[in-house]
């Protein structure tokens, strides 16, 4: 088997993402790269509830997955016979939503006689910058900032992760969403806050930068949330919450989150002695964050890499990519594989160890 390890085998992998409120399907070819991807976002379904309703999310994945699959096969000009494996998001995420993608992937794989593999959603996010032309090289520090996670991770290779710090309460994206709700903005709030912040006066409010004076690489955003709510209430009491108030609060809030993230990222790179940062997850789409990181890291001779905007939030391409790396190394599901709504990323096997076994 060892001799085979040097043979470069090209694989075409289908990726399915259904962990939350987007249905994503993609085809990744280990030789040619990403061939096609399609996404259906359920935002419009959940917006009137002010957050994701798990049952509605699961129901919609059932309706959307196959039409999207047909679409990517058509777009890529591939036939099912060309496929070498199927990667699906096995966790973390909403259990009912994960179950839809997992069951579909496993039954397709069984019927086509190809392997399936459950992929870790955050590993997908973390590797999404690898879909770009200019890719970061291992080892690097990754900042994962999404609706459910805020983590700093040291990455020495695929599956070689060490958690450096994480949020002790709300995730950064969650904080964006909650602040948006306080300002009467629709779900998901991140992009709306960012838009208002552009017209906000940075000098009007000064929000606390949580945890920056404490050593270590953990985050906390719940204090910021309370501060935001108090500011909203103060404005409301004084003269009613005007549009300019909203813009100024959005600006101050974004500044505080971005400043905190930038300081911790820089600290993490210095602590680990690494020159490369990767940011991924929904919040990494934030332009202010990208700009500020770039400037701050340039000062210490470090570089930041991020995914294309469409691959910052949930998508099938990152799952196809992550799955392709592991399937290519020989990893695949056991017959009783199941979804993992909670799944610490550090439990993932290093790719090197997978190759040893296979």
């Amino acid at each position: 088997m060892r001799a085979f390890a040097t043979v470069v085998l090209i694989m075409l992998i289908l990726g399915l993402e259904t962990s939350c409120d987007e249905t994503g399907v993609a085809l990744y070819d280990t030789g040619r790269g990403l061939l096609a991807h399609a996404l259906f976002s359920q935002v419009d379904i959940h917006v009137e509830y002010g957050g994701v309703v798990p049952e509605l999310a699961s129901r919609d994945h059932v309706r959307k997955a196959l039409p999207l699959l047909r679409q990517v096969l058509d777009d890529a000009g591939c036939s099912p016979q060309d496929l070498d494996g199927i990667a699906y998001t096995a966790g973390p995420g909403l259990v009912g939503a994960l179950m839809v993608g997992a069951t579909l992937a496993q039954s397709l794989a069984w019927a086509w006689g190809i392997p399936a593999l459950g992929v870790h959603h955050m590993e997908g996010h973390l590797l999404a910058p690898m879909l770009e032309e200019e890719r970061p090289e291992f080892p690097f520090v990754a900042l994962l900032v999404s609706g459910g996670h805020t983590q700093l991770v040291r990455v020495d290779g695929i599956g070689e992760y060490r958690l450096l710090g994480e949020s002790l309460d709300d995730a950064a994206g969650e904080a964006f969403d909650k602040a948006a709700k306080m300002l009467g903005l629709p779900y998901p709030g991140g992009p709306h806050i960012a838009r208002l912040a552009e017209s906000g006066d940075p000098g009007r409010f000064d929000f606390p930068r949580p945890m920056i004076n404490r050593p270590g690489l953990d985050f906390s955003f719940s204090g910021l949330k309370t501060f935001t709510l108090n500011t909203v209430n103060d404005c409301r009491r004084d003269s009613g919450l005007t549009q300019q108030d909203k813009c100024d609060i959005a600006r101050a809030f974004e500044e505080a989150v971005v400043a905190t993230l930038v300081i911790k990222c820089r600290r993490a790179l210095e602590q680990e002695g690494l020159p490369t940062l990767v940011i991924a997850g929904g919040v990494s789409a934030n332009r202010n964050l990208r700009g500020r990181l770039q400037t701050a890291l340039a000062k210490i001779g470090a570089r930041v890499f991020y995914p294309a905007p469409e691959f910052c939030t949930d998508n099938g391409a990152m799952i196809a990519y992550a799955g392709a790396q592991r399937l290519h190394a020989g990893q695949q599901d056991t017959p009783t594989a199941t979804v993992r709504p909670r799944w610490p990323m550090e439990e993932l096997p290093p790719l090197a160890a997978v190759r040893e076994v296979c």
Partner: protein
Amino acid sequence: MTSILAIDTSTEACSVALYRDGEVSACYEVVPRRHNQHLLAMLQNLLPRGSLASSGVEAVAYGSGPGSFTGLRIAASAVQGLCFAAALPALPISTLACQTYTAQRLGLVYEGDLVLSTLDAHIGELYWALYEVGRERLQELTVAAAARPADLVLPGTRKMVAIGSGLRYLDAFSVAVQSRFAAQHGELLPAARDLLPPALMALREGKVQAAEDVCPVYVRDEISWKKLSEQGPQR
């Protein structure tokens, strides 16, 4: 030669069955909350070669609902995958009808009987539908619905056999409803092999679905989740 694969995961039971020219092979296990881990192993058991089309399977029947939402989606997603991959049609069958065939196979109901088929819908409700057992097929007298036990009202005056897990609410049924029951079988659960008789008829009559159209019949479509306008002020 006719061959149909059948899947039901609508209750705590997970079951699959294969019909081949009058012969039925089946697997049935009660595995609450672990259906997804058992389903593929069961399919592998019935069809060791994995390939549906070359094993002669012409269609895949599934218990479409009502039942546990997650369970219904497991069957639907599996059937989508199988039918898409093997280019086969799907046959949606009511789980309440399936359970009535189960009762018939077990000799609990006979031709001419009126049957109240129920499933526990949890959160204090049940799913129900009324059937008459005909010579060839079941006649559906009411469409599947969800009800609180105390609100259940049965049409007509005839006595009937009540079946299924919804009978755990028996004491909460009105006296009028309880007095209609000639017999009760609350321990029953639907089994995939009993999807086969109605599935064979559906296939013959061309009542098939494309893989993309495979979708659970939830019956309960309203969601107990408050919209923003109903949530009150943000804290």
